[in-house]
């Protein structure tokens, strides 16, 4: 037996072996969808479409589910997830919007304006920011930014004005968005920078020869040509922001509360909790079947969104293939 293994592999056998190993990934994805969907099913079954709506305090509902026994009734599965979805949408949306503007300017700076020495500093800096673990961002958020916001930005009057609804303590939307922006911007910068580099030199030189300045040439020619990469960057950053669990669980305030834009400026200080953080925090009470169904239904929604975003990124990248750029 060993002798057979030691002799050189035939080509066909090698191809089959490698192909089988490669297909493991596909098998895992199918398993992932099946397992998560199977465990999430009771929650959708008993809630129907009202799963997506708000039904009061979602934390109370999950708390009740923890105490239901091994055989929960249909009423025990009741949950309205809207506050968590709204928290996810708010943090992701704001962080991606702010991060996008920042990333485009930073990418243009790296490609066009940065002097050689500074460029050699900025590029490792982007890589560093992308590499810092989320728990360290969370630590800085909760020990530095949250106390700062609590002491200097949220006034006592503001806290009093909403004290019967929600407790403002510094954790909340603004800190979450600021840190999430710092976390996802490096990915966008990396993608946009590489796309800007890949735009043929002649195009921009043509623009400069026609007498426009360097910024105009960048903005009207290079950035325009790199639009598909910018869209791909946004989509991938969205996927990253959706799935951020640990950092947000530390700085978002961890309240199943939907911040209300009608509250004016108070809105940005209100606590929230996205879907991913809810999964982390309830991972310990998975023994109760009702909680298990709810938590896996959050995971299924995240999985579905990230699948849609993957398809979106794939579609966005298609035009870039013309230029031979692999994003």
């Amino acid at each position, binding site marked *: 037996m060993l002798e057979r293994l030691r002799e*050189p592999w035939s080509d066909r056998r090698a191809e089959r072996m490698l192909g089988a190993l490669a297909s493991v990934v596909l098998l895992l994805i199918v398993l992932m969808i099946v*397992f998560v969907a199977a465990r999430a099913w009771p929650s959708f079954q008993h809630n129907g479409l009202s799963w997506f709506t708000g039904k009061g305090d979602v934390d109370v509902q999950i708390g009740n589910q923890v105490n239901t026994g091994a055989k929960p009734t249909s009423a025990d599965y009741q949950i309205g997830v809207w506050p968590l979805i709204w928290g996810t949408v708010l943090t992701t949306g704001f962080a991606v919007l702010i991060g996008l503007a920042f990333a485009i300017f930073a990418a243009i700076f790296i490609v066009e304006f940065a002097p050689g020495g500074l460029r050699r500093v900025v*590029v490792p800096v982007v890589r560093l920011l992308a590499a810092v673990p989320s728990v360290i961002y969370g630590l800085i958020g909760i020990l530095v930014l949250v106390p700062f916001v609590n002491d200097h930005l949220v006034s006592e009057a503001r806290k009093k004005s909403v004290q019967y609804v929600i407790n403002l303590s510094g954790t909340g939307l603004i800190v979450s968005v600021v840190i999430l922006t710092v976390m996802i911007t490096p990915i966008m910068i990396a993608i946009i920078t590489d796309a800007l*580099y890949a735009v043929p030199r002649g195009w921009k030189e043509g623009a400069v020869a026609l007498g426009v300045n360097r910024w105009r040439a960048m903005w009207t020619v290079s950035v325009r040509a790199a639009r598909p990469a910018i869209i791909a960057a946004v989509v991938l950053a969205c996927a990253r922001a959706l799935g951020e669990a640990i950092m947000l669980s530390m700085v978002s305030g961890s309240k199943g509360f939907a911040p209300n834009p009608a509250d004016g400026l108070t809105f940005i200080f209100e606590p929230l909790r996205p879907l991913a953080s809810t999964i982390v925090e309830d991972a310990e009470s998975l023994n109760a079947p009702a909680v298990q169904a709810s938590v896996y239904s959050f*995971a299924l929604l995240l*999985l579905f969104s990230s699948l849609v975003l993957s398809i979106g990124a794939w579609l966005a990248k298609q035009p870039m293939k013309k230029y031979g750029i692999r994003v």
Partner: protein
Amino acid sequence: MAVAPQTEPLRPIRPPRKRRVNESLSTWRWGDRIAFVLCWASGIALCAIAGGIVLYMAFKGLQYLSFELLTARPQPSADQKASGGFLDPIIGTVVLTVIGIVIATPIAVATAFWIVEYGRPSWLARAVESGIEVVAGTPDIVIAIFGLALFQQGIFSLLSFTAQGGAVFGRSFLTAGAMMSLIALPMVFGATREGLQSVSAHVREASYALGKTKIATIRRVLLPSVKPNISTGAALGMGRIAGDTAVVVVLLGATLRIDPESSFPGVGLLRGTGGTLTSYVYNNSSAGEGNAKEKAYAAAFVLLLIVIGLNFAVDAIAKRGAQTGLESTRLGT
């Protein structure tokens, strides 16, 4: 007949004086000037944020870090003087990273070779390639919770602890490492694929011309030449694993100490639960139960050193090939 008036004799044309074009902002429109300033501002802001984070962590970390913290086992105690150090989390990080990368590297390298060198049938190759992108885009918390559902099945009972009633616990170093390998896989795959695609076709043809089979070419020619790329991908993947918290919290139990499942050395540890530096920081921040800022800062500093070390080890491995220097950041997306 009119003769064109001679104005002046033609002077020989002097070669144009080399003059640096001094592009002055004063000729720019106001909107362009503002954009220019914004570009510089975002570049400087990036440096300031990164510098701020690293310096602050270094300052706080070095302030609280001590040799005893690194070598003492953590003790469950409310009194910070008695709660020990973080030896167990460091061991946990190392063990988990090694398990994850040992599972991920062979699969990722085999997949990359198959896709680039064979890639038949082409629909399957395309599906696998998109599949890896899907895995890269899946949130780590979803991967973690999928791992829990998968490894709680009876057939995986050997990997973790089984409760009295026969319920499989599903949380152990082995199960967490297996799921961590999914997080590292896209990075190793991407780096290997880029390396293979940059190997020139002549190299392969020369090998085929000598009568070598495809697999012999892969083993003797291509594998040695993409070794630096594989190491790059593995280092980046290890950085990702070491920095991940969600999988640790859900699948490793995130306990304070490593709890071997039996007294049998080695196997007991792998089947047991534990914690890593990331979960130690998470639990000791004011968000967790521990609430010991000083220790969280010290552990976070050690973690940051490990992750930065792994990410910039890449530069030492692969000096050549990088054009923009940002390719490695793009790999995992």
